[in-house]
């Protein structure tokens, strides 16, 4: 796809505008904010010409389409399988997925957990907006108890199970070097989230093993809140359920995939 560079106000040079307009996000969506953080980190690490990004299917799909970076889009839920092969074959220094919480841990739970169990030297960036945004706001793995979605009209209850804590869960796996959860609802949290992404990418460069960063993002249209009220919902409700921070941070997993010779 031929591209011409067009710098987004205050943004990274890696944002591009394809020949045909692609509008990836709704007003008030925080996913482009996370995209900006990823691109800043990639640029600071000098990896944008080497990196290969593997987006899943959902609201996150179209973000990497407008990055000046090689990309392999996948079927819904399959980024960790695809990224496994891309990393093993190309030995590229940075191979990472960009996924929503449904892509990563509902339909994609098998690939995600299996890549972690194999200790694949890849990074997963998963954005949790607590619903399936692209399809109109259905319940997703991170929908919190009591939260109304189009498939939990009375609020998520006992029959729908409990919200998934992915970084905590994967932290218990031997092949995992790093997991963390961040948010971008305040400037301080945003800076921390950026550090988590950088740390995860560094683990991959070090050949330490599997790394995953979950970032909580606002979804005004499907939450039916204004962008400002979304920040309040994140602060008061989501962060009470999903604590921020690192859940695993080791320099080397017990059976790491060897760092491939460059």
């Amino acid at each position, binding site marked *: 796809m031929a*591209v011409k560079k067009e710098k987004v106000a205050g943004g990274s040079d890696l944002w591009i505008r394809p020949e045909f307009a692609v509008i990836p996000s709704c007003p008030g969506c925080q996913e482009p904010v996370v995209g900006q953080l990823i691109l800043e980190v990639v640029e600071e690490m000098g990896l944008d*010409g080497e990196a290969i990004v593997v987006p899943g299917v959902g609201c996150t799909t*179209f973000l990497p389409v407008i990055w000046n970076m090689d990309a*392999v889009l996948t*079927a819904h839920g*399959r980024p960790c*399988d695809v990224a496994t*092969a891309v990393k093993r074959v*190309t030995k590229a220094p940075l191979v990472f997925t960009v996924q929503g919480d449904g892509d990563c841990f509902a339909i994609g739970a098998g690939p995600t957990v299996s890549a972690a169990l*194999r200790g694949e030297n890849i990074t997963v960036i998963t954005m949790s907006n607590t619903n399936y945004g692209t399809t109109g706001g259905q319940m997703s793995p991170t929908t919190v108890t009591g939260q109304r979605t189009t498939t939990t009209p009375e609020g998520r209850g006992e029959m729908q199970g409990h919200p998934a804590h992915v970084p905590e869960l994967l932290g218990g796996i031997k092949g995992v070097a790093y997991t963390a959860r961040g948010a971008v609802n305040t400037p301080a949290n945003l800076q921390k989230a950026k550090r988590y992404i950088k740390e995860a990418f560094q683990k991959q460069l070090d050949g330490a093993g599997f790394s995953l960063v979950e970032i909580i993002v606002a979804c005004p249209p499907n939450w039916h809140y204004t962008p400002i009220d979304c920040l309040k919902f994140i602060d008061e409700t989501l962060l009470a359920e999903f604590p921020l921070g690192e859940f695993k941070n080791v320099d080397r997993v017990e059976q790491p995939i060897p760092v491939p010779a460059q």
Partner: protein
Amino acid sequence: MGETLFVQGNEAVGHGAMAAGCEAFFGYPITPQNEITEWFAREFPPQGKVFVQSQSEIASINMVFGAAATGVRCMTSTSSPGWSLMQEGMSMLSNAELPCVVVLVQRGGPGAGTTRHSQMDYNSATRGGGGGGYHDIVLAPASVQEQHDHVQLAFHLADKYRNPVIVLSDAILGQMAEPLEVKALNYNSLPAKEWAVRGRDHQSDGQRRLILPAQGFMPSKAYPNYLTFVNNLDQKFKEMRRTEVRFELQDVEDARVILVAFGSLARVCQGAMEMARGEGKKVGLVRPISLWPFPAQAIRKLARDGVKFLVVEDNLGQMLEDVESAIGESAPVHFLGMLARHEAREMGMIFPDRVLEEINKVY
């Protein structure tokens, strides 16, 4: 002359892949193809090639998707239940126009069926089992040597058309051993894979590459809209139909009964044909090698006055439909299927003498 080995058909797949320059294999255990996965696990890592035992056939085919996107020759193998799981990936590969090879060692079905032989995946292999109405070239080897040769041809055709190619084997071909001459087959050279991802700085033009299984979903330079993309697929499939039909004819010129069989059953029919000729009966054999595109025209030409066709398959009649469709009302088409196996258990087989009996019935 290459090295001559005495190996199983499943192992011959590995030798063929190696000769074709395959760089990555992804597989999940399933009977009766395990020797293939085990061969790659043993032979690939010492050569610096990639082998991954995946967590499912869904993962295998998506790993193939990832490896193919980087431009290397890559493959997977499976049997019928795993093949069912791979249909999503096959459809995605077709959309993304990624070349790869899938070796399908058929077993009894439907469902988990049996772990023994059958030819019951003819329809799902030749019809495009996933969503969207795509086509894959399907090659049907009939010997251990052809298992090896067809894998190489499959890699060439996959790259030529940027499309998956299926090698449709079965438990008999996979498990039986025959002499194999290992040699690299030469095909015309193909253009470099400029479209592959490798990191933007490693692209010849410094432009990023985007591989996606949703071509047509959003406009691109190659495909400004959905129908442009679909039209490209149509042209590609038509070109395959024109160019890639493969088949073998034996003693059809004077034949009164023409057998039609593929894969291991073609070997059975060969035996039956020789027995019939020994009795002075004029019997010929058509062996489709490409099951898609199907050699319909070649079969139609044989449908002259007085000729009867006998389709022999180890299923309930799948290729039969293609033969009937090719011949129409021009000649009678008889069928001998898996219900003619020599015993009722899953290891029962259709033997040459049973085929001969049927030849005598319709002659």
